[in-house]
């Protein structure tokens, strides 16, 4: 896990997706600040409790916690968090959160709730993988992220929002078949 000096590159410490009881749906840490699972769980529990009573539904909320800035947003029974160092530009981190929450919304076709998220856990994990690589922001545009995850094709010529998932998968297979035939 590489960490970067603040002068260089905006970096994300972790991305968390928790349920309405603070349990993990999917989490990814990019920093050695939390060396083991129990320190991670402690962090998740405290940030969940701290933010539980706030209203982060229409707009993303933010808090300073334990020397980190945490930007978060709730959709139905899912709680989205993105954590960064306390000298980070808050709006960049908010942008990452927006990309994360919106792309999950696209991938789950608006059915953003714990059960659907778990049923499509592979998509969620791929989604996180497309947003951050080792702490560095890869992409924050929700359509692009969702497109990369669902079509499995980086050159998705039709914007994701304009096709259904099954269409998208079909296009991907087609692309793939074509490339095999060549």
């Amino acid at each position, binding site marked *: 896990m*590489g960490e*970067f000096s603040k*002068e*260089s*590159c*905006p970096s994300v410490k972790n991305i968390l997706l928790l349920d309405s009881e603070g349990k*993990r749906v*999917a989490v990814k840490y990019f920093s050695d600040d939390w060396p083991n*699972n129990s320190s*991670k*769980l402690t962090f998740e529990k405290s940030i969940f409790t701290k933010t539980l009573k*706030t*209203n982060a539904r229409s*707009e*993303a*909320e*933010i*808090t*300073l916690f334990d020397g980190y800035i945490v*930007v978060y947003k709730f959709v139905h029974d899912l709680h989205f968090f993105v954590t960064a160092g306390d000298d980070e*530009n*808050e*709006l*960049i981190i*908010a*942008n990452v959160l927006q990309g994360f929450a919106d792309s999950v919304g696209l991938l*789950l*076709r608006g*059915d953003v709730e714990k*059960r*659907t998220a*778990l*049923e*499509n*856990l*592979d*998509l969620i*994990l*791929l989604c996180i*993988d497309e947003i951050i*690589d*080792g702490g*560095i*922001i*890869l*992409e*924050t545009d929700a359509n692009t992220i969702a497109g*990369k995850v669902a079509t*499995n*094709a*980086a*050159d998705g010529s039709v914007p994701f929002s304009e096709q259904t*998932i099954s269409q998208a*998968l079909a296009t*991907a*297979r087609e*692309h*793939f078949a074509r*490339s*095999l035939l060549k």
Partner: protein
Amino acid sequence: MPRSLAGDLTDPEMAQPYMKKDDDESEIEYSPFFGIEKGAVLQEARAFHDPQLDARRCSQVITKLLYLINQGETFTKVEATEVFFAVTKLFQSNDAGLRRMVYLIIKELSPSSDEVFIVTSSLMKDMNSKTDMYRANAIRVLCRIIDGNLLTQIERYLKQAIVDKNPVVSSAALVSGIHLLQANPEIVKRWSNEVQEAVQSRAALVQFHGLALLHQTRQNDRLAVSKLVSSLTRGSVRSPLAQCLLIRYTSQVIRESSTNTQNGDRPFFDYLESCLRHKAEMVILEAARKITEMDVTSRELAPAITVLQLFLSSSKPVLRFAAVRTLNKVAITRPLAVTNCNVDLETLMSDQNRSIATLAITTLLKTGNESSVDRLMKQITSFMSDIADEFKIVVVEAIRSLCLKFPLKYRSMMIFLSNSLREEGGFEYKKAIVDAIVTLISAIPDAKEIGLLHLCEFIEDCEFTYLSSQILHFLGNEGPRTSDPSRYIRYIYNRVILENSTVRASAVSTLAKFGALVEGLKPRIFVLLRRCLFDTDDEVRDRATLYLQTLNGEVAVGNTEKDVNEFLFGSFDVPLANLEASLRTYEPSEEPFDISLVSREAKSQPLQDKKAPGKKPPAGVPPPAPVSAVDAYQKMLSSIAEFSGFGRLFKSSEPVELTEAETEYAVNVVKHIYESHVVLQYNCTNTIPEQLLQDVTVYVDATDAEEFSEVCLKSLKTLAYDSPGQIFVAFEKPGRVPATCKFSNVLKFTVKEVDTSSGEVDDDGVEDEYQIEDLEIVSADYMLRVAVSNFRNAWENMDPESERVDEYGLGVRESLAEAVSAVTSILGMQPCEGTEVVPSNARSHVCLLSGVFIGDVKVLVRLSFGLSGPKEVAMKLAVRSDDPEVSDKIHEIVASG
């Protein structure tokens, strides 16, 4: 419809009872991973070995594995290796979805270097695939797991990938480059042509990643960064993220160049200012923040403050937070610049987001002027009830500094603090309030009595033993010096009646302090103390007994009442570690343990005294190594008859080498300082096997040292190869005077040849002498480094009459820090409270020193340093000590140093 894996993920073997039998029952927690077990999933992973791969099923198994990892489950080394090997089989399948999952799990398993080779060829194939998604992901996976060796093999492909026409592939290669840079900088630096091209890319994120990598490869080359900035600020950067990076680099260049050019001309400042008008908010924020962090004029600062002020009324909490946080920082150094925002900040005090509200309040507390304090306090009082403790602490701390700024307003703030004390709150919060009140009492004399009464009321109903004890201790120090000390007695004695034993013991000590310091109260205090003699707790009884006996004069401590008070309540200036070490070596005997013999010297290194107890070096033979404990020296020296009349050893220096390393004879010297004597202990080692030295002495030339006269010399009879011996030379010097001088030394001896094979010594010897280096006795030798725990208290407890202040110009110095350490080492005193550390870029600094001067005179020094001109250092030196003459001497030392 969302794709549902539920049916597939829940295999028969992990069947679960609630599955869609009845819609009503879906209320019960449902999870496709219900009842999942590591063992079972590892079994399922065998499907990866099937000759006919079921891609869909394999994807699901990988998802389950990832689920387990995500929940914190760990695999043993064997399990991980097994899964990894199984996963590698899946490269046979051409199913794109499965391949994605394979990439993901390889990254999670992070295979060890001896396993990596199995997948490298598959990944390298994918890296050159026609499918963009394969290329991009294979690069990211491969770069995550390979080492430098393999990297050189694929370097060519990575360079190609950086300039790939697909932005996703290009970004993947660039981001991987940033990661690889840490372990393999020399390889990544070779890609600079390609990276340069990427920076010019039309794709927003490629530009961002390219810029980040380019800067990282050049960050140690100022000129290159400056060139980079000057070429890019002309406007080819489109992506907001890249723009933010460029702002960071620009402000870095400005910061570094401003130290060179004195004319205040900032080459790229216009660019930063233009970013304040950018359309992306993150760029505006980044620019505004960087400008506020710079050393700019008020006119340059104003536009940045204006955009931040606009953000304060944004509908987005993140934006309001970012703005108020930045303004809060500005308010610390330039409160005036922020006053324009006060109206907006006051609105934010009722913000839903408590972080924002707290930041708004603390900003207001910094920018507020004297007239607005009362109104502000009123608003805060209503706000305090509905925020969490951690925010309250921030507010209390802000109020404390505000009160120090406007001491005339102490009344309303004291009331606020005491009201807060009465409300519900945890320990940390209450402690913050008590600390604040204590600070105010110490800083504002008028606030003392009212503050003490608030504290007294608080301990009447305080659930925290620690705080009660602290307050009682503080009362004991401050209470006796108020106009009417008797009013506090009731509160203190109530503690003796009502509290637990720890608090009772503290209360007894406090009572005793009142008794000792206020003559009029003494008889009444004695009555109260006598009642404590029947307490159920032995510590309470012991303390009461001790105080009664000593204050009454029944047990003699010293000669005067002052001695008694010093004994009971004086600061304990013996470092506990030293006391412990001395007690360990003390052997029960007729002679009582004498605490005054314990070294007062604070040792920076841990005590080396780790020898088994009871294994003491035999008397007369000094310890083999210069043990840090002075009592070892004391013991050794007092066993030498000639020195036994010198009294108590004041200080022993660290050994000073008088010869270069690797010479024929190695000599170092330890300076032992007594009140009116100095003993030089020369430790000599003969490093020539063929020689035996006899009648070894040191001839010390003291012609330059008028104040010193040699009284005794103990030479060495023989000095054999590699067995060190000691020579002692004692001098008499004027008492209590820090006499300094320089000695030149010559080692004199008779050399005899030794036959190394037989060990026989030749009878004929030759007289010879050996020049060793000069030795200096400096002022610092007369000073013990003794720390005080609370410098401020110690300072105030010293007689102001003993204070001597003067100013010195130290001329051009390398830096403030260098000047601080130079003066500290001339005086040989102990820096207190971490004040020896000078913050970088500081223009002024205060350093606090303490020590004990020869004659056991306590000395405290406040050094105020300031920079005038570029490197010119001026210093103000204030000394207080137990003896005004010593204060003068300290000035003489500095003036002559």
